[in-house]
């Protein structure tokens, strides 16, 4: 019937149980160390609502961008936003495109949300303007932020005043700047650098032509402002302007409490379900609890391992934990369907082994069909919830729970019961919540 003997399957399940139990435990790194894996820490990735932080959603204004250039604009927008978001040094920043014209930025543990919004949302368009010394008229020079390679904040050694030192890109950018400064130096016109339309540096006279590609700009600012401006210029201008359209932030204390509450709820839920199964299905219930334990360890292991695959890691949110705990209740559903069927077959006078096999075969269609409906819901939830990551978290954990539980409730429980069926004491109908007279 099956290409693997029950014993082989049992041995494999046992091996898997040991492995996933080790990996699912909180201090798995200590155990892995014994096997020679150093620094092999695995962690369940926590969403912003659990670890605290802010989620920002920016909408790009693509109205002035030709439709052919929109994809490129969005790609470079994400690159620039990622650079800017990483300046704060917060760990594990995630910048993702959402739909056509939105970009979400997750900032775990961020303290100053306002600063983050300002930093990310600023267009930071640096332009150089020529100012006529007599009339004050401003004309663009054609040199802008795209010609700048990097910028650093510095002190002017003579005046001990904060300045921003620009390094121009080599080649044409440096040559053009050299030509411009030569021209200005001769005409006596002034040079003005403006950032997002604000005159930030200058206007100043050009005392000598600048041919080495290094420009030192001074303005009315302190060293911190100079640093910020330098960062903005280095990260580059946003290719299209953005506006903040959504913000969700969670303080660190709420996240911690949520985790504690959820763990408690999970343990209580697991215990109550286990007690119920034990009281109602006796020995079979005990096997179902074992399968449930394997289910829990296996799921946690999958959460942890997914963290190693960039882009596919499962991020646990509060709703995600709810999905997981909910799936504990569902994980035993398949067992209930099988055990009820088995009782029925035993009452009909079948032998233990025959009842066992029929129960698994017959219950399978309802298990499959009923779980598919939940999986359909999860798939659609995931697909339509691009605007709301919290819903995606729920859909992922619930779907994963359904899939893993189908495996543990069907394959694991069946193998355990087949092993048990080898002993005559384990075939006693009383152990399955049946009365002897029911079977005779």
């Amino acid at each position, binding site marked *: 019937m099956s290409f693997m003997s029950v014993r082989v399957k049992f041995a494999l399940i046992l091996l898997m149980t040991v492995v996933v139990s080790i990996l699912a435990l909180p201090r798995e790194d200590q155990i892995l160390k014994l096997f020679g894996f150093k620094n092999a820490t695995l962690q369940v990735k926590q969403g912003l609502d659990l670890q605290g932080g802010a989620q920002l959603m920016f*909408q790009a204004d693509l109205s002035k961008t030709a439709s052919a250039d929109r994809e490129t604009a969005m790609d470079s927008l994400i690159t620039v936003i990622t650079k800017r978001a990483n300046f704060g040094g917060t760990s594990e920043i995630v910048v993702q495109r959402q739909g056509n014209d939105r970009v979400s930025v997750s900032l775990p543990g961020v303290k100053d949300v306002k600063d983050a919004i300002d930093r990310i949302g600023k267009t930071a368009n640096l332009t150089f303007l020529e100012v006529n010394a007599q009339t004050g008229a401003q004309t663009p020079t054609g040199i802008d932020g795209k010609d700048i390679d990097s910028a650093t904040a510095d002190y002017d050694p003579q005046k001990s005043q904060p300045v921003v030192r620009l390094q121009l890109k080599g080649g044409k950018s440096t040559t053009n700047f050299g030509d411009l400064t030569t021209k200005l130096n001769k005409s006596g016109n002034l040079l003005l650098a403006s950032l997002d339309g604000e005159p930030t540096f200058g206007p100043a006279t050009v005392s000598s032509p600048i041919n080495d590609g290094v420009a030192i700009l001074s303005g009315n600012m302190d060293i911190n402002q100079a640093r910020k401006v330098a960062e903005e210029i280095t990260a580059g201008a946003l290719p299209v302007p953005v506006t903040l359209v959504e913000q969700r932030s969670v303080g660190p204390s709420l996240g911690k409490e949520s985790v504690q*509450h959820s763990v408690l709820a999970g343990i*209580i839920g697991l215990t109550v379900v286990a007690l119920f199964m034990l009281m109602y299905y006796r020995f079979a219930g005990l096997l179902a609890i074992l399968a449930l334990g394997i289910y829990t360890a296996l799921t946690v292991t999958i959460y942890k391992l997914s963290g190693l695959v960039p882009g596919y890691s499962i991020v646990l949110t509060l709703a995600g934990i*709810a999905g997981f705990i909910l799936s504990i209740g569902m994980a035993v559903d398949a067992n209930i369907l099988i055990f009820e069927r088995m009782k029925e077959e035993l009452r009909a006078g079948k032998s233990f082994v025959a009842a066992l096999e029929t129960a698994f075969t017959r219950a399978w269609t309802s298990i499959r069909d009923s779980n598919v409906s939940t999986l359909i819901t999860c798939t659609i939830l995931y697909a339509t919830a691009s605007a709301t990551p*919290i819903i995606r978290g729920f859909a992922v954990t619930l779907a994963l729970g359904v899939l893993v539980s189908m495996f543990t409730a069907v394959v694991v429980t069946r193998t355990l019961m087949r092993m048990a069926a080898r002993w005559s004491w384990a075939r006693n109908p009383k152990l399955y919540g049946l009365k002897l007279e029911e079977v005779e």
Partner: protein
Amino acid sequence: MNIIGRRKIWYTISAVMIVPGVISLLIFGLKLGIDFNSGELSVVRGSVSTATIDKAAKGLGYKDLVVTPTGSNETQIRFRDPATQAKHEANHQTFKAALAAEGVEELSFDSVGPTVSKDIAQNAILSLILVSICIVLYVAYAFRNTPKPVSPWSFGFMAIAALLHDALFVIGAFSILGHFFNVEVDALFVTAVLTVIGFSVHDTIVVFDRIRENLRREKGSFETIVNDSIQETLARSINTSLTVILTLLALLLFGGQSIRMFVLALLIGIASGTYSSIFNASPLLVTWNNFRVKRAAHAK
């Protein structure tokens, strides 16, 4: 136990359960949260008086300020900041600092702009429609080999009738909660309704599966076969729901505060789903079948 014979009683109970919610829905509607309606939501620790919050919000130009204490020692502050979205955080920092000066700790702050809330609402409606269509198709497909007298489509549509029952019950209950207790619905509420729909079908399929099996094996009237099938699967219908309800109760009582309403919606819906799969979906198959037989006889 004659479940099918008493089906009028079960339908009446369903009507009594659903009608008040539907009436409330028609008169009061649902209280839409910022996810659908845009705006700002700040959650603070402790029960904080409206006067304290008004004082903290002074001069910020916040509109439509609504203060709602929630179950476990938290207060929700809902408002609308007419300033541009970019200035919201600056205003919020001032507000948060003013609250902190009063000794009030802010736990979370959400701000949703109108374009985003429009999208969330559209996605919610889209997902409801998609889930319903996919489930009818799936159930009809799964039951394609059903022996006469029932067509696979009637299984699909009765499963839909049962899930509409559950969805309406949950949505109605939240309309009542919204009107009397200021409970707002958010994007998670839609998730709860969709999950309830998935579960409702989950339960219904177990009974339908048995009806199909018995139709192949047993001779007898359709009514008797359906009634036998319900009885044979009664224990598992109740037990499978019970384990889910037990875990949800654990979540409701001990889980995180911010998803309490989400869990409540799931709990109400799944309880209703258990009822509808036993007392509505299968009896409706009989009612529908009888109606078709009568109509066919009439036509002759």
